[in-house]
């Protein structure tokens, strides 16, 4: 069959597919349901695919190949697109997908936790014993600022009763901007063979541990610990989870195992993303608690009580939620 004859016979089909695709590519609200003959689409598309293959193998003219290629390209995009049931998938993720993913990769979590907790404990202890230790981490001005922030004398407006609800809102915005950003960067650092994530975990561990040890030594525990203990449940856990996600990327790059490096990275990233998104939600919760609860000037006993509840909640959620009756995860 010569090209001219081929075109004459099949052109109506191509025009039909073109018109169908025009209709399907419109936003859902503008589509005319009578024209969207969705049931006919796959058959029509596959016919045109075989026409394209024929036209190529018979060396038909470039312009015809281009026309058919364009139709196939559009059809492929349409047929194999992934539709998201947005709301449902989000709810399913929060209600089990996230903790399941974390338990599935608990090795990374434990490694990240150790990288964070060990330096925190060591430097915390060192700062508790040695008053000068903190200066190995921060300069004098930073230390002075940090000390005045948690000074029980309460001259500083930051944590005193003078703090208004306006400030609470402002800090809420700041915690979202800053803390979730840190979480994302901790994850992204995993792309540098895991070193970036590891660094973020170690560094944050050192700073938080150092500050906690130093302030406790000064006898500021009644201002510091009630403030951090509540939101720490979400915040610290989430940063460690982000670090774990980054370590997954680093592991895939360093030791891809049976796969090639790039496919291994792709697979790891898809899994790691679940951890990052879950951690981002936790950081959102942390920002809320930190801005509106941690800053309140209630009795320390109440705040410790709530902190215990929040930690228990986080542990329960991550360990037990989303287990199926039969499965082990």
């Amino acid at each position, binding site marked *: 069959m010569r*090209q*001219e004859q081929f075109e004459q016979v099949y052109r109506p089909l191509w025009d039909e597919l073109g018109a169908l695709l025009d209709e399907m590519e419109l936003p859902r609200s503008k589509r005319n349901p009578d024209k969207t003959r969705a049931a006919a689409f796959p058959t029509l598309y596959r016919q045109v695919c075989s026409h394209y293959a024929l036209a190529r193998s018979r060396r038909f003219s*470039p*312009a015809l190949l281009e026309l058919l290629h364009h139709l196939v390209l559009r059809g*492929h995009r349409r047929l*194999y697109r992934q539709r998201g049931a947005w709301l449902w998938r989000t709810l399913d993720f929060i209600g089990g997908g996230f903790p399941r993913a974390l338990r599935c990769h608990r090795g990374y979590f434990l490694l990240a936790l150790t990288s964070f907790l060990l330096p925190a404990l060591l430097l915390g202890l060192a700062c508790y014993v040695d008053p000068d230790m903190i200066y190995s981490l921060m300069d004098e001005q930073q230390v002075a600022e940090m000390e005045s922030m948690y000074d029980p004398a309460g001259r500083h407006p930051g944590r005193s009763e003078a703090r208004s609800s306006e400030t609470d809102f402002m800090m809420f915005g700041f915690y*979202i901007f800053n803390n979730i950003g840190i979480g994302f960067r901790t994850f992204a650092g995993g792309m540098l063979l895991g070193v970036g994530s590891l660094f973020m975990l170690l560094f944050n561990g050192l700073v938080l541990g150092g500050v906690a040890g130093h302030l406790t030594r000064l006898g500021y525990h009644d201002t510091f610990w009630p403030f951090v203990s509540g939101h720490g449940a979400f915040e610290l856990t989430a940063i460690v989870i982000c670090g774990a996600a980054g370590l997954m990327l680093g592991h895939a790059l360093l030791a891809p195992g049976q796969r090639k490096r790039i496919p291994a*990275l792709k697979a*790891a990233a898809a899994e790691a993303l679940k951890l990052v998104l879950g951690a981002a939600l936790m950081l959102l919760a942390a920002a809320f608690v930190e801005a509106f609860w941690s800053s309140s000037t209630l009795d320390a006993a109440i705040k410790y009580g709530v902190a215990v509840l929040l930690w228990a909640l986080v542990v329960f959620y991550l360990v037990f939620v989303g287990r199926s009756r039969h499965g082990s995860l």
Partner: protein
Amino acid sequence: MALTEEVDTTRQYEIPEGVLLEFRLAGPLVRASAWAIDAAIRAVLYIVIGLSFSYFGGVGVAIILIALFLIEWFYPVLFEVKSGATPGKKAMGIWVIHDNGTPVTVSASVIRNLLRAVDFMPVMYGFGLLSMLFNREFKRLGDLAAGTLVVYRDNYEKRSELPSRTAERPGVELTESEQQAVLAFAERAPGLSSERRVELAEILNEISGHKGERAVDGIYGYANWLMKGR
């Protein structure tokens, strides 16, 4: 075909129907231009949001900071999921797709845009550029992990028609690639200047024996013969 596959920045993907799709990859320069346009748009957004909410005290500052956070991390995600391209990419005629040619999903878009933080290091997309130059598909690190490609949007214009002439059989047997060249010339020639048309057509002087516009008509004749037969 074999040569262009090696030289051209195209990528082929075999779809389940057994045919090859071809994508034209977008290089660092066009992507940098798209980024610059987006950066300008974002700067304007920052200024507008910053100015309009600065009068609302603490709540206003909170809204500014949250908007800053969302724009910094999710501006590209929003547009890529909605239409495949940010306004900057759209202006440059490129868009983001999966390695398999399908529209980019939320998760892939989020991965490639979170990892932008590393691509940006140490300064101005240093790692991103290095990564793009070290793989065949101009992928920055985020694209490698997400399995995405940035390609030119395939804008199909109206098909050029072959000028109709009396079919004429070429004096020699043409190989398949020569046949393709003849057909490609005949279909594209109407868009060329007459001087260029003649210049190209006269390359076949030894076979056709024609000069000037006659040579062009001669090739149209061969093309008609290839397409329609006697």
